[in-house]
């Protein structure tokens, strides 16, 4: 597994840059991962990241658009505004979780 140094922290990542060990995640790592994606984290971003974190611990998967909307209370348009072009996969990456996947 590749490793990288980011904002002074060592993290394990996969080939696409998604963290593979959530224990290594913290707010500074998130801020640096966001910066790499061209995003400066605001409170609105943190609300999304916080929901993904809480929900992953409960469900074992990164929440989809509908769940973000209905359970997390985050409107779809807002998600796109915060994390443009593929909001779920971008938010998942910054939250330190795997990208949403199918079985193959």
């Amino acid at each position, binding site marked *: 597994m590749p490793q990288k140094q980011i904002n002074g922290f060592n993290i394990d990542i996969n080939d696409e840059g998604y963290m*593979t060990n959530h224990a290594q995640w913290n707010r500074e790592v998130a801020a640096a991962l966001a910066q790499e994606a061209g995003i400066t984290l605001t409170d609105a971003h943190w609300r999304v990241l916080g929901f993904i974190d809480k929900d992953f611990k409960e469900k074992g998967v990164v929440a989809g658009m*509908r769940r973000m909307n209905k359970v997390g209370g985050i409107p779809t348009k807002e998600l796109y505004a915060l994390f443009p072009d593929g909001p779920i996969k971008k938010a998942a990456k910054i939250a330190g979780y*795997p990208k949403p996947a*199918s*079985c193959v």
Partner: protein
Amino acid sequence: MKRLLILGAGTAGTMMANHLRKRVNPADWRMTLIDQYPKHYYQPGFLFMPFGLYSEADVVRPKRDFIPRGLDYVEGKVERIDAEKNRVRLASGGSLDYDLLIVATGAKTAPDQTEGMTEGDWRKRVFDFYTFEGATALRRALRDWQGGRLVVHISEMPIKCPVAPLEFSFLADWWLAQRGLREKTELTYVTPLSSAFTKPICSEVLGHLLRQKRIQVVTDFNIARVDNERHRIVSWDEKEVPYDLLVTVPTNMGDAVIERSGLGDELNFIPTDRHTLQSKEHPNVFAIGDATDLPASKAGSVAHFEAEVLTKNLLHAMREEPLEKDFDGHANCFIETGYGKAVLIDFNYEVQPVQGTFPLPGLGPFSLLKESRLNHWGKLAFRWIYWNVLLKAAPMPGIGHRMSRAGKQLPAEALQAGAAA
């Protein structure tokens, strides 16, 4: 005497009825199975119907044929599950009290969840193949197909049998080529995920199939609406994909009774312990198959493996013993790739699909994550196994509910980081 209720006589509910009928003493427990529909569909067969490979006779049987003697079978609709009172109310007015409840009410397509999907183009240019009616209507549409833009589309995850839309695309490529229509058809696969193959090893080993078959892929497409006038699907960020024929997998949702009963999540799936299959909210309620919110595939093989674990845990619950945390997310699926070939995958919560042999290490006869004719014959043979072995809960020698790592090539990355623990 105590009472066990099973809601739903589909794949999972029927298997549970057959397992428990063999293991539970009818003098101690009265068992009742409830379902509102008379027909049992072999859902994997819907994939083959649009191409004329299977007909109605291949995929439909009466539910009663698979329900064991010695338990009550109620053909009726459930109005509400009152989990606080351990009671199920029927639409006909009666009610049934239970000591233990198994919810096996499945998942179904909900095209009305997408704006415009059920309007003008529905069943004219827009079809699904996840229902008998949809697969039948699509068969007629394909018979008249002369070429144009054929779009295969997934509305949102999770869906039943997540590989089915890929299989449909592969079969369409083959079927069109046989009819001399492939050159006249632009075939596009549209997914809300970030690639067609999302698991690294699958992507590496099978990624070439899409290129080889000249199937265009549109990723990260989250549908907002169907534009029936302009025959386009439109995403939330205003991307558009034009279609002449749209084969969509609509949003999949748990049964409406779950919503009416306040037992589900935003898609009416029941929050369920992923290892014991016990409801997270009600200790005497269990869920199985497509009805659960497990991070496992919604597939018949998963229901089959779950049924073995749930049978053990139901017996424990009847004796007031602790439950076994024994379900590992095991799934086993054949993926049709066209031209008489298929790929087999075998995986669980922790191990993604890898190459190897199945079920016997080194011997097979099936090969994992590799196209072969034998895998295709396995897929075809599976229909007989489904009707005659799986539904009746007869043993499948050599294939346990726990995924075997023997016979699999397991590089370090095969273990899924962050997988459901």
